[in-house]
């Protein structure tokens, strides 16, 4: 018997995607993989925003925030990829473990 989909379902999905995103960022050595992890984390937050918007405030403000986040994520992805390009130009790889020249 499937219960009605409530807020907690959104939150559980969001938590799962967030965890997967963090796990992705923590384990991948490929820069693109890390970027994908970041996108997952951002979108899990989006799901949260949309969920709260629907069940708590009842207005569209959360959804508008989600649209902003998508926008910023796009810009951030563009920046990140530009950084990767330069990184590749310098070290001929996009393995982020190679970029530890500034370690303490």
């Amino acid at each position, binding site marked *: 018997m499937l219960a009605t989909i*409530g*807020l*907690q379902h959104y*939150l559980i999905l969001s938590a799962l995607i967030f965890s997967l995103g*963090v796990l992705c*960022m*923590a*384990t*991948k*050595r490929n820069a693109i993989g*890390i970027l994908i*992890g970041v996108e997952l984390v951002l979108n899990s937050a989006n799901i949260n925003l949309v969920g709260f918007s629907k*069940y*708590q405030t009842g207005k569209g403000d959360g959804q508008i925030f989600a649209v902003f986040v998508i926008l910023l994520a796009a810009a951030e992805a563009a920046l990140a990829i530009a950084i990767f390009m330069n990184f590749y130009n310098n070290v001929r790889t996009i393995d*982020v*473990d190679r*970029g*530890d*020249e*500034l*370690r*303490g």
Partner: protein
Amino acid sequence: MNHQFEICLALGVVVPLISFAILVFFGANPPFGKPRAAYLAFAAIATSCVLSSYVLINWYGLSVAERTELTENAFRYHWADFGNISIDVGVKLDSLTVIMYFMVTFIASCIHAFSIGYMSGHSDEVGGKCKYHRFFAYFGLFSFSMLGLVISSSLLFLFIFWELVGLCSYLLIGFYFHEKYASDAGMKAFITNRVGDFGFIVGLALVVLYTGTFDLDAAAASFAEQYHTGTGIFAESISLFGWHVSGMTLATLMGIGLFCGAMGKSAQFPLHVWLPDAMAGPTPVSALIHAATMVAAGVYLVARVFRLLTPDAQMFIAVIGCITLTITALIAIVQTDIKKILAYSTLSQLGYMVFGMGVGAWTAALFHLMTHAFFKAMLFLGSGQVIEGCHHEKNIMKMGGLSRKMPWTGRTFLVGVLAIAGFGIPWLHIGDIKFGLGGFFSKDEILAVAYERAFNMGGDGHGESHESGGTHGENEDHAAPVHGDGHAMANVAEGVQLASADTNASALLAAQSAMASSESGDAHHAEHGRADKMKIAGTLPSLPKWMFWLPIFIAYVTPFYMMRCYWLTFRGTPRDHHVHDHAHEIPWMWVPLVILAVGTLVCSYMLFRPMIADAGGVATHAAGIVAIDGEAHSWEDTSGQVMLTVTHGSGMDNPHNALALIVGFSWLIGMGLAWLIYRNGPALAGRIKDSVPGLALVHHALEQKLYFDHVYNYALVGGTKAFGKLMGAADGVLDFVVDAVAYLFRGIGVFAGRQLDMGVEKRDIGLVDNIANFLAWITYMTGTGLRRPQNGRIRTYVLLTAGAAGIALLFVLFWPHSSDAAEVLSATAQP
């Protein structure tokens, strides 16, 4: 209103300043450099001279009434307000300004021209430090300051320019600053002037305090009003150090204070010591600044503030002038340095001017200033020519016979000697033309006034006349003021003009009638004028007899020492063949001399009666300054007290037969005596000195300049040094205290250092070091610890961030009294 005269005069002041500004910054290098810097300076002063000629010619083209109107309506720029005192900038436009301005620019132009040649041999010393252009830059600054002084309408600006000419004098005396005597002389001049200027400032402060204005005319008007009504300064009664000072005394002190400035600048006793030393400067400087213009500024100042002087202050001035002219003329007799002789003769002539001012011979003193400026500038340039031609030899004992080597210099020098000696022939005249050089007339005018003051003043009527003098509205009774002047009929003629222009001055009308009557020989009217004069005479204290006889005596001494100087330098046989063989006249440098000589000759002709009566020529008015502008008679106009009392008819014809007899041939006797003694060189003079008992002693005293320098050196310089030593000792005590405190704290520091900190070399770490090291250790450990996580791996950072977030979440969820967030979370969990 037409302001063209003021604009021209102001422009003429600024042009030399521009020349100074250009030369002082860019004068050393091309496009200026050695000869061209001088051309620029000359062009500047020549421009001023042309402007002043334009003003002079047009000024005397106007009628007296028009001139008066221009003077009264002169432009004033409101500059600033100090409390109630408003300070205006403007040109004092009157005949004195115009004629003085012309005199300064004309003589300065001649001397600039002379300096072009002279300085080319006297600069570029000490590795080129005494730069040629620097000299001309200073000359420009001096011309600017001197002309500014002449045109200033306010005492404040007069004072500012006064100080500026003092500065220029200092700079130019010390032009050869690498020589100790020159820099010392500069400092001596500057410091001596400071003494006088202190009095000037005190006088200035009193003027402003009681009249509330710096403006010359307004101050004089206010002062006369105060005298008349017995208010202001005359109502003052103060007690100073237990000494009661009445208002009249205070007014006298004010006048003496102002005169102190003149004492410094015009080098009057006892501040005369700087002028002979000032000859350390280049000779053109001596000619321009220390003979013709700047030193005359003191006399000019007295002339300008004449209306602020009480009879007592005038008497003080006369005494100072009398002392100065006597002692300096005596010292001049024994000097052997050609420039020193001229310097002492300048002092003596300045003494005459100041004496003339003091006895009330306003016109005569200024006339003497003008004539003296011409011939003394010429004499100095002549001496410069001699010094240059003889390779810097200044001792006249080594000269002789130079007139063959430098004929033009000799001729012009002789003209100067005759002028200063007062060459002229009394009683001789062709029609109205009388024979004599400027010095003859100007000196006799001064002496004539002194004569009247000393002999023709009734002492008995003093009190009575004074009473009436102080009363308003009785001008008719005691009115016959006439401006000084024995032989100068200038004033007669001008007085007539003025009287017709100024109907208010009943006094002047009376004077006119007296003059006219004596002129026409009408016995009755002459008697009338005489009676009037006697009545007025009572208001002024009569002059002590010695103050008449001393200047008379010096009138015989002056030709003597000038002839001695001329003869030993230019005539006779050469005494030093080395000097004589090398002597030469520098081509073209005698041209300014000749121009000045012509000026000297013309100056005397200024007095010729027809020219004055016609009031047409430029020259005539030099003598008539006073009468035209009423500078000198305003006191009696406004206050009822008569300052100038002497009525002279037609010069030597009338009451001056006696004077002409006494002093008319002094030039002949003085010069003749000098010729008798010195015609064969100085040997005879030496024999006379040794043979007459006591004369050697006097000679020695005069050679030592009457010990003024010694006394000042011991009393003032020595006193200052002793005071300095005393202060030095006091300073030592203070130093001891300060040092003791410093030692104390140093001791405490060392002790504390020992206890707390053993220092590095002892290898024993103290408290301070331990604290510092501990702090450093903490910092180091913190840094090392924090360094670990910064390993540059993104995964580590992500894990750390996630871990931190997880911890934060746990904290939010399970902390007792948790935040709203936990409640919201739990609330949403169970909707």
